[in-house]
Structure formats: structure tokens, C-alpha cells
């Protein structure tokens, strides 16, 4: 392994682009357009941190995860993992890279083969990468992993379909941990689970990160889950990064109007904190035909002419926050959008 200075980010994505072609044609298919799923995304993941990626369906967050893990090929852009450019890796080098990055998927029902035993599912990466070649050693390692994720090691020979959703997600976590990766990408790991089970998995991931010194990229549509899990948060909208900020800044003083809208839309389990929501109008436009310039301008309450003409760069707006907006939210506007519990930390809650 190349020894890189530890202040260098573990993962760095530069101008990541993924366009899925839309083809049309009678016999010969020609490209007539593209779904611009990810369209110029740059970010870094620092060693040992949890970076959250949040956004609504179609914002490109899952595609981004698949690009950095090389489950999808990039259209353009670079991904540096521990100093190496990895988007063009092939064969043995790619395989080695996969050992260091693992992904946990959303749906524990479809991402595990129900006809395989837990043991063989968790052992699979070990087999593929030729680790623990002797059966006894491999079995011990698998049972150790099962123990780590809170599964009963005696259930080694049970089939995946015998387990409930929460347990299956634990199996998925054990499989991801098997190769001792340095980076784990969790793509909506709890959204398919029952509410009473979600906390079990979230706590498990937090504990594992602390104990195993993992770097985590946590993808979710739920801002509350992201806040619970992450150090820094990347907000995406229609294939673009609109805001990138440390947790406290993002939830204390969101600058991009879209971030504000997301925060305002989250229902809060506090009937006394009911507030006038700052509703967005309309739907998310199609990524096949995104609005020009600032992609949020069609729904933005602060839109001005320049937003329709010039794309705002992602630039520092104070508080370590970077946002891509010509007219970022002011303190007052942000407070209007924050739930009472968050806003009142800075100023008295407006009387109702």
C-alpha cells in the first residue's frame, strides 16, 4: 500500500460526470440525449470521517456512490483513492481497489441471495480475494464477523431468507467488513427497514466506525438520519452539489435555498414545534432535461434573472460552508426554515 500523508483525503472526486445515454432509432440506435445523473460533482472524503450525501430521488446520490466504487464507469472526471486515480483501473488493480472500498445496499431483501447460507455470503469476498484459504480459518473469520455485527455465530449455516430485514442488513454489513476495507459506502442502509429496527443498524454502523477506524460515506434521503450519522454533509440536486458543509453549519445555518427547503419540509416529532413550512412549488425537473444555469431556479423562492443565466459556482460562504448559490439564505431566512429546536439554539423561538 502506498503510504500517503494522513492529511490527504482518503477519497477525492473531481468533476465526476455520469451521463446515461438516451437512444432512439429504428434499427441503428443513435444518441438523442442523456440522463445527466451526475454532472460535475467534486468532493473529498477525509480519513476517519463520515460524509453524508443527501438529496431527493433522481439527484444522483446513488449514482455517485456507484461511480466512486467503480460499479459504474464514469463518463468523465477523476476519482483519487488514497492518492491513486482509479477510474481507469482494470483487472488485478481494480480487484485490489475493491478490497479497500465496500458498499452496503439499501434493500437487504434483494441484495442477498436467499438460497445461500449466511456463512457463504459473508465468506464470498474472502474466497474471491483468496483470503483465509483453509476452511477452518475462513469459518472462524466469518463467525468473528457475525459476532461483530451482532449476529449469532451459531447461525452460520442458516439461509438468508430465514432472517428478518434488520438481520439481513447486518449480514450485508458483515460481508462489507470481511475484507477490512478502509472505506464503506452505505447507500440508504436503513430506509427499507422497520422504524424500530433502523436505530439498531445506525448504532451498529456508528460503533463499527469508531472501533474499526472506518471512513464512511453515508447516503440517505432523510436529513435527520444524516445529521445523526455524519460529520460533513453534501447536498445534491439534479446531479449537482448545491451545498457542502460540516454538520453543525448545515443544520445551524443552511445557505442554499434547496437545503433550507429540505430542512423545512422534514416533519418534526414535536407538536409544539409546528411551523409554517417554506414549501417548494412544483416537482423536481427531469435529469434528462435539467433547467439551464442554476438547476434549482425553477423552484427557488429567491430566484432572480441571473440564476437563469449563470450557473453559480460552489464557493465558500463562511462557517466552512460551500454553497452554489447567487443569493444564499440570510440568517433570518434560514431560521424560518429550521425546526424550532434547531433555530432556537441561536435565538428565541418565535412565539406562536
Amino acid at each position, binding site marked *: 500500500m502506498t503510504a500517503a500523508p494522513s492529511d490527504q483525503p482518503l477519497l477525492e472526486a473531481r468533476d465526476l460526470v455520469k451521463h446515461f445515454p438516451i437512444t432512439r432509432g429504428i434499427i441503428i440506435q443513435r444518441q438523442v440525449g442523456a440522463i445527466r445523473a451526475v454532472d460535475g460533482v467534486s468532493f473529498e472524503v477525509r480519513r476517519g470521517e463520515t460524509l453524508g450525501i443527501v438529496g*431527493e*430521488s433522481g439527484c444522483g446520490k446513488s449514482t455517485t456512490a456507484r461511480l466512486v466504487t467503480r460499479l459504474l464507469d464514469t463518463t468523465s472526471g477523476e476519482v483519487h483513492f488514497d492518492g491513486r486515480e482509479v477510474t481507469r483501473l482494470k483487472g488485478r488493480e481494480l480487484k485490489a481497489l475493491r478490497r479497500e472500498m465496500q458498499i452496503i445496499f439499501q434493500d437487504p431483501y434483494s441484495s442477498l441471495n436467499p438460497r445461500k447460507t449466511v456463512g457463504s455470503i459473508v465468506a464470498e469476498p474472502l474466497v474471491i480475494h483468496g483470503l483465509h484459504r483453509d476452511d477452518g480459518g475462513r469459518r472462524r473469520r466469518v463467525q468473528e464477523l457475525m459476532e461483530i*455485527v*451482532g*449476529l*449469532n455465530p451459531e*447461525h452460520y449455516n*442458516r439461509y438468508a431468507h*430465514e*432472517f*428478518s430485514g*434488520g*438481520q439481513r442488513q*447486518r449480514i450485508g454489513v458483515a460481508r462489507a467488513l470481511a475484507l477490512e476495507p478502509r472505506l464503506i459506502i452505505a447507500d440508504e442502509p436503513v430506509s427499507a427497514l*422497520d*422504524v*424500530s*429496527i*433502523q*436505530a*439498531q443498524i*445506525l*448504532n*451498529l454502523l*456508528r*460503533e463499527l466506525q469508531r472501533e474499526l477506524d472506518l471512513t464512511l460515506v453515508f447516503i440517505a*434521503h*432523510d*436529513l*435527520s*438520519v444524516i*445529521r*445523526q*450519522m455524519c460529520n460533513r454533509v453534501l447536498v445534491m440536486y439534479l446531479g449537482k452539489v448545491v451545498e457542502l458543509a460540516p*454538520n453543525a453549519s448545515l*443544520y445551524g445555518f443552511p445557505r442554499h435555498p434547496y437545503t433550507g*427547503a*429540505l*430542512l*423545512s*419540509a*422534514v*416533519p*418534526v*416529532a*414535536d*407538536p*409544539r*414545534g*409546528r411551523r409554517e*413550512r417554506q*414549501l*417548494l*412549488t412544483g*416537482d*423536481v425537473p427531469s435529469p434528462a432535461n435539467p433547467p439551464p444555469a442554476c438547476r434549482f431556479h425553477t423552484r427557488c423562492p429567491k430566484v432572480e434573472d441571473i440564476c437563469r443565466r449563470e450557473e453559480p459556482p460552489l464557493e465558500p460562504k463562511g462557517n466552512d460552508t460551500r454553497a452554489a448559490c447567487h443569493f444564499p439564505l440570510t440568517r433570518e431566512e434560514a431560521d424560518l426554515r*429550521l*425546526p424550532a*429546536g*434547531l433555530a432556537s439554539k441561536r435565538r428565541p423561538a418565535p412565539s406562536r
Partner: protein
Amino acid sequence: MSSQPPPLLEIEDLRVEFATDDGIVHAVDGVSYQVERGQTLGIVGESGSGKSVGAGTILGLTRASNASISGRILFEGRDLVAMPAHELRRVRGSEISMIFQDPLSSLHPFYRVGHQLVEAIRVHRDVTKAAARERVVELLGLVGIPDPKRRIDDYPHELSGGMRQRAMIAMALANEPKLLVADEPTTALDVTVQAQILGLMERLQRELGMAIILITHDLGVVAEMADDIAVMYAGRIVEVGPTLALFDAPQHPYTWGLLKSIPSLEHDPGDELIPIPGRPPSLIHRPTGCHFHPRCAYAQPAHARTDPSLAPVAGQPAHRVACLLDERARRAAWAALEAGEAPAASAALSTAEDGPG
């Protein structure tokens, strides 16, 4: 009390069971609640808590050859459980309407949205197609679908998720129902669209005065929408009360579990979540005694034997809980949880659920 008009909907000891190859599924197990005119009742629970089955039973949608339904569902004094199918049909979609979780699969893929709404009007009202169509345009406008004259001829797949749910709401409102049953109406939607739909439901309730039963797994949604909340677990209501009372002083350990295990923007992110250990029980082989006792951090051995029933919290007749802990113990336990102390039994935070099912 006799001068008070009866509630719009009064459910008494409702039981719904399904005979399956694996045994009898006790989906709803002795549920009673009331809904007043113009009010919103939130029903909270996980999958398998019986919340959706119970709601579907109001409209008779769970009637089937393998289902056995008992108890009473009094809607303006008429018992919907005993009502013959041909009479119940006249109530469906006219006096009581329902919307569902997934608006795409809930609309027929082969028929235009307008056609499906016209059908909903004409089944209950003797109006011409043209008149019904005019009304549909009006309804689509009412629920905030832009350019309804054009959208009326769209197929469901041509609309966005939010627009589809708006169309479903328009269909439900077509005959000005007195009660709208909304079964997870925003679960399949993005958060900004969810906020739009919830706002729309609030506005329509204000304008049309209908009552709403809002079924969801999301405490945030009911906190914002409901006047009263019922928490369901394993086919039963374990706690019910006015929204403020329920959030100010929740009484049931399961309610606490829900409140403390879900990340919320109100939580301090430094706090560990306190998960509910284990997983929801099978509805065929239910735990003995209090159904929640295997997952309850405060359970005593006796709780495996005694089955609690709903009883009012002292001084709060409207707030009722089915818990065997005495009131003082409950108050102390909730205070400890609020102070950030995890209950002893769930200290092993990542304890997995019991063996495979």
C-alpha cells in the same frame, strides 16, 4: 353527556383475522377508537401493527373468504361491519374515501387519470359524462395540479409522483366525503413533495371540513397533522391520546422506543439512539401477556402472563395506555430517558434480534 352528538366514526372492539396455511393471523385484535367530525386521528405503527388492515376494514376492503371480522364500526350510527356489501359499496368513495401509499400502483395504468376520476363521480352520482368531466377539471385544480384541462387526459405514468398522489386525493374528494382514510399517503414521496401533500391535506380539511384518519410510521408526520394519536403494536392500540399529551408525557415503553430510536432534527446528534431491541412479533404466534414484553426494557416476569388493557392516565381521561407498569414507574422511566439515560436492558446497544424467524 347525552347532549353531545355521537362521533363521526366509532370503532368498538374490532378484530380482523385471516386464516392462512401457517395459522391464523391476528391482524387487528380488539381495537377501539373514535374520530370526531373535522378532526384528524393519527395512527402510528410499524408494518404488521395492524394499522393498515384496520383502516381498510372500515371500507370493507379486507372482506375475503379467509377473513373473519368482528366488532363494530359505527359510522354516523350505521355499523359498517354488519352492513351488506351492496350497501357498503354506496358508502365507499362517497361518504368515506381512501388514499394509499403508492399512487402509481394505485391508479390503473391503462386508463387516463380523468377517466378514473369521472368513474368515481358517476358511480355515486347520476350526472352526464360531460358534467363529471367538468367537475374533474375543477377537482384537479383544487388539489393543485397545474393546467388541469390538459392533465386530465394524461395517463398515470405521465405524471410525477406528487401529481399522482394529488390526483388520488382529487379522486377521494370527488364526492365530498365526511371521512378520508389516508394510508401512508406520503411514504413513497420525496420529502419536499411530502410537505406539499401534507400541506394540501391540511388546507382541504380546513376548506371541506372532513375528518381524516392518517396512518403512518412517521411520528413527525402525525405530530404535525393529528389532533389525536393512536399508537399500534401487534394488532392493538397500546396508547392513545391528544397529540400534545402524547408527546409531552408518552406513557407506553413502545412509544418511548419510537421517540428515542428515530433520529430527529430535534435530537442532539451527539446522543446515541436508543434502539428497540428485537423485532416486531409474528401475528400468528404472538407473545403471551403484554405483546410488547419481549422487547420491553422494563418488563417484569409477571408481564408475560397478564394482558394489559387500555386505561386512562390519571387526571387525563382522553389519554389512555395499555401498560402494566404503574404510573410512578412510568413517569420515572420517561424522565430518565429524557435525561439521556439508556434503559438498563437495552444497554447492549447492538444486540441483534433473536434467531432467524
